[in-house]
């Protein structure tokens, strides 16, 4: 086992594991604010550990994991998003609530799963990584549940997640059966040599895609679990929509590039159809919502659709566009949810119409939410615009011009739909008196950092683009 020594490459992950253990040991004695601080310090240490491995490519455990430029790009993003979620999550406490002190530990473990997923290059390891992420999300929904609806919501999430894992596993098993290898790249080479197994391979791809649907946010649990948005606190949803979604797309990108891209099935066409439906349906569903969190989650369907568009052109512009899109998406989700968490300190309501007092009582939050909504829709000059333009560019490059047209029209549709939030937050007179609550440093930092990040990426994409090209060349190499 000559590669066994490379286990030290896992030092960021080891830090996360260590931090989680420390938190679980201390949870009986320390309040949640302290354990959150421990978790934040752990994330910073993990980031520093990762920084020592920039610009390296290391194979770990005989090729079960591969730390390359792609993985490093994603891992930096994951650690940053997780840190912002923890910062914002500290303020997500209703009067009379006392969240479990161990909660940040589960956030760390979920991040650990996402980190492993980013570097996994083999079917078993990637499935285990995804399950580590998923199981901790189940725990978090149960642990942080709110009110009577919380239990049902957590259970619904567990069932849906388990079913999707099973479907994913079937898909992977089928792929393994066809190729005879669990290593993604080797499996891809085997599939490229195969002829005449198109139906089976298409089935495998469909199952993998279906298995990822929940994780992408294509099939949100909110769909059939009523009360999810109120039963589960926004800090958990925020984490799932940023870290969880990014990790899922990363893993799927590995599978798509290494395994399916070389095979003889029209995989890009399948994905293009799913993407077009998701973009349009997500936006149509989102604009009819009356709850802010539901709207954001349904907007997430459309975002997942846009991310899938990048997969139509994997060999050229796709991966770079995907990386930038995911960065923008993670920042945007964090920004939107952080603003909502902060606003909920003054107005405990989930209804869009209750945002009416926002620009008068908490103008900073209103601006942040406005920026996030504009970014979600894909208008300049914020991050979401470039995310979407690059993804659409990839679609045209891949020969799916009609998909780019659908995407461009969806930008207009989304902008028009989400403008309702802007109107209510900035235009409508407040229906009730709101006493502004002084916000903690953590949540203010989270809102400010994510909003500044969105604007910065909307104006200066250069550095991120360079990094994304580096990540792209790593995975295509």
């Amino acid at each position, binding site marked *: 086992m000559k590669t066994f020594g490379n286990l030290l490459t896992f030092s960021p992950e080891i830090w996360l594991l260590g931090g989680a253990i420390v938190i679980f040991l201390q949870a009986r004695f320390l309040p949640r604010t302290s354990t959150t601080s421990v978790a934040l310090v752990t994330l910073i240490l993990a980031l520093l550990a990762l920084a020592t491995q920039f610009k390296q490519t290391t194979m770990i455990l005989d090729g079960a994991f591969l730390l390359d430029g792609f993985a490093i790009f994603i891992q930096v993003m994951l650690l940053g998003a997780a840190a912002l979620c923890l910062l914002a999550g500290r303020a997500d406490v209703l009067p009379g609530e006392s969240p479990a002190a161990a909660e940040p530990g589960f956030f760390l473990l979920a991040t650990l799963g996402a980190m492993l997923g980013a570097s996994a290059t083999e079917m078993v390891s990637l499935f285990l990584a995804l399950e580590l992420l998923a199981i901790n999300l189940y725990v978090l929904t149960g642990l942080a549940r709110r009110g009577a609806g919380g239990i049902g919501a957590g259970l619904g999430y567990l069932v849906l997640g388990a079913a999707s894992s099973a479907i994913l596993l079937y898909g992977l098993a089928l792929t393994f059966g066809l190729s005879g290898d669990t290593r993604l790249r080797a499996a891809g080479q085997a599939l490229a040599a195969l002829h005449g197994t198109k139906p089976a391979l298409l089935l495998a791809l469909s199952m993998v895609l279906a298995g990822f649907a929940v994780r992408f946010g294509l099939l949100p649990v909110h769909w059939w679990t009523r009360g999810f948005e109120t039963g589960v606190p926004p800090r958990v949803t925020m984490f799932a929509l940023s870290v969880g979604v990014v990790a899922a797309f990363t893993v799927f990108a590995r599978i798509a590039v290494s395994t399916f891209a070389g095979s003889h099935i029209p995989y890009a066409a399948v994905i293009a159809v799913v993407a077009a439906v998701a973009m349009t349906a997500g936006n149509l569903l989102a604009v009819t919502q009356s709850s802010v969190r539901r709207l954001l989650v349904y907007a997430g369907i459309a975002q997942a659709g846009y991310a899938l568009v990048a997969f139509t052109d994997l060999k050229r512009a796709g991966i*770079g566009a995907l990386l930038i899109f995911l960065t923008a998406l993670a920042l945007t989700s964090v920004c939107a949810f952080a603003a909502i968490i902060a606003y909920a300190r003054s107005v405990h309501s989930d209804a869009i119409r209750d945002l009416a007092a926002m*620009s*008068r009582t908490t*103008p*900073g939050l209103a*601006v942040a939410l*406005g920026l996030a909504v*504009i970014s979600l829709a894909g*208008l*300049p*000059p914020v991050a979401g*615009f*470039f995310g979407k*333009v*690059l993804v*659409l*560019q990839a679609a*045209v*490059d891949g020969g799916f*011009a009609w998909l*780019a*047209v659908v995407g*461009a*029209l969806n*930008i*207009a549709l989304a*902008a*028009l739909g989400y*403008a309702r939030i*802007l*109107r209510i937050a*900035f*235009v409508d007179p407040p229906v009730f008196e709101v006493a502004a609550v002084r916000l903690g440093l953590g949540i203010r930092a989270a809102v400010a950092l994510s909003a500044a990040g969105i604007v910065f990426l909307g104006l*200066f*994409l*250069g550095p991120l*683009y*360079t990094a994304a*090209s580096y990540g792209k060349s790593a995975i295509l190499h």
Partner: protein
Amino acid sequence: MTFLLSAIVWVPALAAIVLLFFPSRTDIQRERIRSFAISAAVLVLALAVFMWYGFRDQSGTYAYEETRNWLSGIGSSYHLGVDGISMPLLLLSTLLFVVAVVASTRLREQAKEYFILLLLLEAGVNGVFASLDYLLFFLFWQLQAVPMFLLIARFGGPRRLAAAWKFLAIDLAASAFLLLAILILYFKAPVRTFDISTLHDLVLPAATATLIGWLFFIAFAVRLPAFPFHTWFIDAQAEASAPVALILGGVLVKLGGYGIIRVNLGEFQSTFHKFSGAVVVIAVITVLWGAIAAVAQDDLRRLIGYVVVSHAGLVLLAAASAAPVAINGAVLLMVADGLTAALLVLMAAVIADRAGTTSIRAMGGMAAHMGRSTLFWILAALAAIGFPGLASFAGQFMVVVGAYPGHRIATWIALIGILVLAGAMILTVQRIFFGVAPERFGRLRDLGTLELFNAAALATFIVLLGLLPAILMDSINFSVLSLLSGGGG
């Protein structure tokens, strides 16, 4: 001086960001916000005037060019520059934003958001005029939608919400056309670049070029606003608060004309020439429609909207003729129309405020108490109908003279439109200011100091541009000639 254009574009945006941190609880603090916004707008105007003084090369190339790496990966750069076509419009924009900011009073606790939005809008408008990169152009174009939506929706008249939604819906749809045109162009070009001057000599297959040309044209015609896309403009013009309506009619719609001249005419000239027949028809209908609707219009604010629409038709006619004289006239007319529309909007706000209604039939005899208002309104109305010696005379004259050889019948019809519009304006003057005053009027207050200052400033420029069109004409002409001489497929 390469940073001058950047400053003109970004100073308003920076000022808007700085304003975020101003407290706005007391009246003194709000007054401070307004002063800050005024000084930012004045600074931008000063920079623009300074730019105009330095603009002397007149070789038809872009002046104050600034190129920086921005998104080199996808072939987009931060490329700014002005020529004789964008420079006068940039001057107009910076001037009218100063007037708009100065004219914005009575905002009370919403002052902060209002000025932030207005300054963001200015950044977007100036950015479009200065951009020489399609992606940057689109970015600034799209930057205007949300601030304008909020400005109309929040600070307008009773039906402002409907007008704001209409604006947003139509503007976003048009933007989608613009984005599609830019993306198709980008992908069909042999070099992956968004740079307008690099793509200048591009030769595309006829079908593709026609598609791109139409997409661009529709996107710009919606903004212009040309018939049948003008209804959003009339509603927004009627419902927005006076300073916002001033920006809308004076500056924002001029971007449509600018886009048609810069992109359709400058970059896709031969394609544009192919469907110029359709454009002429649209142009003539727009001129006539605006003029006839102005005659029938009872609402003072809508009337101004139709005056702008009618002039937009003339700009379109000039573009379709592609004659140098006509294009010169169109650019000049856009500047003049911006100034006139601004003065009309300001005076209409004063008149409607004093009369307590915007219905022209409910007014009358106002000249007795409001001598100065009467004077300024008549001046603006005369300017709008192209009275010699006032701003739009030279522009309208050149458009007609330039377009006549190519499109004789259309020009005759357009001339009829101009005459009808003149009739409408004279009739309106008679109805508002003369005749019998309604009983309820009592004593009406004439222009206040601030209103007088704004009106006098605009009137000065209207007269100045009418007497000395040459102050802008020389630089416009050189750029128009070079614009028309180049241009690929």
